[in-house]
């Protein structure tokens, strides 16, 4: 426990800088040389309401998820002490301003004159958060330079703010360092070179850019908006057109129009917006327009818990829109996969001319992980015709693979006619039963190739054991964390959810006991197992209160059901 592993929580009311402080703490720990995981919870309110940010760090191996028990708390109000002090480990402590301490009754409180200190330095009152964080680092014997670097990195472009906060941090650190005896652990320090602290939303945005994204349309929605914000910010450097549409129906239809014209297009939304896109999903499919939809799931149904997490849209993503057509549903489990699969999503969309849905969630999208390096992936153009079309070009040419070369409007010699009505090879409307069957057949043939890809790359396996734990999406991270406490468990992650890699899952699970864990109420992956493997899972762990599964409860579940 000598600083090999730690968990810190920053808490306070919305508007008190919980997010900034937490992010700085996370960065600072990365600069120390730790592998860091960070996550947060906030209400759907601009002011008021409790908010927290948790940073978990590990010296060896990777920090993959949150833990229930805490080593230290930075409390920006009494509520934080009230709500979280009970989670402190033996020897854990709360850092807070004297005024907060005066109103709290918790033991093990390190009360410091933080607001006084901030006032003396002429810094704005909100800087108490950084003062407190620095004090906390002081108590833990952290490296001040690393902390200052984190502050400067966080406030990049706002040099004045950065300097004020740096000064506050120096003072706070000194205060804390006086009390370093209070801590039962000491931070380690041995920087490991450039590493990223990456959230799932940014990873998705970067992955789309890596996949050649040139057009992005969105309507703001929590927790997907950060993708819009990031892309809007980098639009000039990255050369991507970013449009905020009047609603999700407009956003997705703009993307479809842009893709039809030849742009690599994507949209990002959350459940309510994805619901609104259901009709247009079929439009993309019927016109065979490549399209990527990112759904950063949040807790539903309906408006639900807009700032909380869930994996509740899986079946909906697989079946959304009336009628039937091939589609791909991918679910990354961590930021590296988010980056890789976002890029891959665009490539698949263009290789097969199908809609691809990337299922992320609030937990993945708005949590942070230390990433050493992003995989080397890039765009593949797919069967696109530019310049001049071959004689007799037909947009929906019936081919063996089901994929027809896609000319872009502007191609000499081609009339590109996309049609949401059932159509013939040239795009003209038809109701002829034979043509209808041929076109359905053409579209469905893509699914065969997609299924092969899914079977090949759609399932990941970690570890070995008598028991198989099956997960999808961000629950993977929780499971990886839980696995540290478990023996004899093989983790199986389904990355391609549609087409479902039934054979690969069957192979990976084999004769093992099959446990499933998901962040939803009905067991949607479990239902896919039933449908495709004709097998009843031996036990299913579901959580649907807007919070991700805890590694601890997952470990307990596995132990209790290992058979």
């Amino acid at each position, binding site marked *: 426990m000598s600083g090999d592993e730690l968990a810190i929580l920053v808490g306070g009311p919305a508007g008190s800088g919980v997010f900034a402080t937490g992010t700085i703490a996370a960065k600072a720990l990365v600069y120390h040389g730790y592998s860091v995981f960070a996550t947060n919870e906030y209400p759907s309110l601009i002011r008021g309401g409790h908010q927290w940010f948790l940073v978990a760090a590990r010296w060896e191996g990777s920090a993959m998820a949150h833990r229930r028990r805490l080593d230290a708390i930075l409390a920006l109000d009494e509520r934080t002490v009230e709500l979280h002090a009970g989670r402190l480990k033996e020897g854990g402590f709360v850092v807070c301003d004297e005024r907060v301490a005066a109103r709290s009754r918790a033991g093990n409180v390190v009360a410091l004159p933080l607001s006084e200190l901030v006032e003396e330095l002429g810094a704005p009152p909100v800087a108490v958060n950084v003062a407190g964080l620095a004090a906390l680092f002081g108590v833990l014997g952290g490296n001040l330079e690393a902390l200052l670097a984190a502050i400067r990195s966080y406030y990049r472009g706002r040099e004045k703010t950065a300097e004020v906060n740096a000064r506050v941090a120096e003072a706070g650190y000194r205060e804390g360092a006086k009390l370093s005896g209070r801590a039962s652990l000491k931070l380690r320090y041995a920087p490991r070179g450039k590493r990223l602290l990456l959230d799932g939303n940014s990873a998705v945005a970067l992955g789309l850019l890596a996949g050649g994204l040139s057009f992005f349309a969105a309507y703001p929605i929590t927790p997907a908006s950060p993708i819009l914000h990031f892309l809007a910010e980098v639009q*000039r450097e990255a050369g991507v057109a970013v449009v905020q549409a*009047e609603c999700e129906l407009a956003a997705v239809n703009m993307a479809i129009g842009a893709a039809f014209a030849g742009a690599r297009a994507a949209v990002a939304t959350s459940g309510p917006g994805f619901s609104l896109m259901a009709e247009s999903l079929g439009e993309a499919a019927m016109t065979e327009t490549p399209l990527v939809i990112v759904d950063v799931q949040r807790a539903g149904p309906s408006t639900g818990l807009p700032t909380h997490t869930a994996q509740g849209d899986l079946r909906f993503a697989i079946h959304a829109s009336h009628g039937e057509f091939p589609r791909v549903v991918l679910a990354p489990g961590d930021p590296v996969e988010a980056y890789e699969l976002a890029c891959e999503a665009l490539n698949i969309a263009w290789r097969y001319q199908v809609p691809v849905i990337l299922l992320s969630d609030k937990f993945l999208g708005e949590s942070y992980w230390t990433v050493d390096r992003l995989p080397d992936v890039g765009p593949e153009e797919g069967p696109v015709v530019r310049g001049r079309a071959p004689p007799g070009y037909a947009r929906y040419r019936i081919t063996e693979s089901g994929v027809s070369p896609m000319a872009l409007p502007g191609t000499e010699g081609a009339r590109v006619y996309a049609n949401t009505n059932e159509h013939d090879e040239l795009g003209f409307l038809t109701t002829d039963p034979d043509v209808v069957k041929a076109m359905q057949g053409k579209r469905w043939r893509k699914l065969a190739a997609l299924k092969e890809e899914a079977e090949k790359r759609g399932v990941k396996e970690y570890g070995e054991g008598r028991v198989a734990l099956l997960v999808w999406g961000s629950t993977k991270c929780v499971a990886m964390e839980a696995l540290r406490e478990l023996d004899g468990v093989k983790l199986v992650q389904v990355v391609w959810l549609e087409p479902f890699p039934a054979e690969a899952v069957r192979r990976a699970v084999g004769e093992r006991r099959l446990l499933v864990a998901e962040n939803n109420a009905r067991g949607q992956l479990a239902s896919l197992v039933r449908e495709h493997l004709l097998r009843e899972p031996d036990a299913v762990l579901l959580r649907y209160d807007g919070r991700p599964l805890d590694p601890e409860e997952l470990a307990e579940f596995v132990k209790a059901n290992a058979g």
Partner: protein
Amino acid sequence: MARAFDTGVRPQWCPGCGNYGVLAAVRGALAELGLRREEVVAVAGIGCHGRVTEYLDVNAFHAIHGRAVPVAEGVKLANPKLTVLVHTGDGDAYAIGLSHLLHAARRNVGIKVIVHNNMVYALTTGQAGPTTPRGLRTRSTPYGSVEEPFNPLLLLLASGATFVARGFSDDVQHLKELVKRAILHKGFAVIDVLQPCVTFYDTRGWIRERAYKLEDAGHDPRDFRAALERSLEAERVPLGVLYEVEKPAFEELALSPEHPPPALRDLKARLPLDKLLARFE
């Protein structure tokens, strides 16, 4: 001109339908502007009007009901070199798609919207729509419609549209000129075309009696208030350009000039990934 922009598919509208006139006017306009079919995209909604894409020989996207406008916006933003037409109906544009139409107008995206306004839902066999006059009996209003119709010209003027015109499918020559002007206009242009549906609501006589040309009436299309006045006329039906003003088009403002437009980007161009990642270090 007769065979220009003809896919060779015989139109299947009712004999006498106003859609024939609209089709002829658009073909004529494209021909007279010397456009090639490859550089034009027509996006259509769902309705009798939507059939245009079967007959008009340019690139085309037959969209879902009500979403032709955002599809067209996407096309235009992806490749501003294309001439992008929207064929839509009163139901498609003023009911289910109204919000998109007005937002596109506000943004001034350089698409050219031709509303086949027959004041009725035709393809679905005749229901009332947002421009159906009060009192009309239709299949959905057997006791006569009790809703006040929109004044689409007024609404479009109010939305910030930089080009608002009205045409009549009976007067192909005049409509053709309007379409040409709309195409030449920079930014968003909309033409509300009175396009009688001879089967469900035949307004030919009514319109013919009341129509007059704004050009002949000394109307100044640069005068916004005069345009408002014209749009409010109840007894007479003004044809022509009500309003036109030049403003930067959205695609000029929104697309970064250092990069080729989205549809023409070279996928091999390297992404400045290191620079983008710096903020995460």
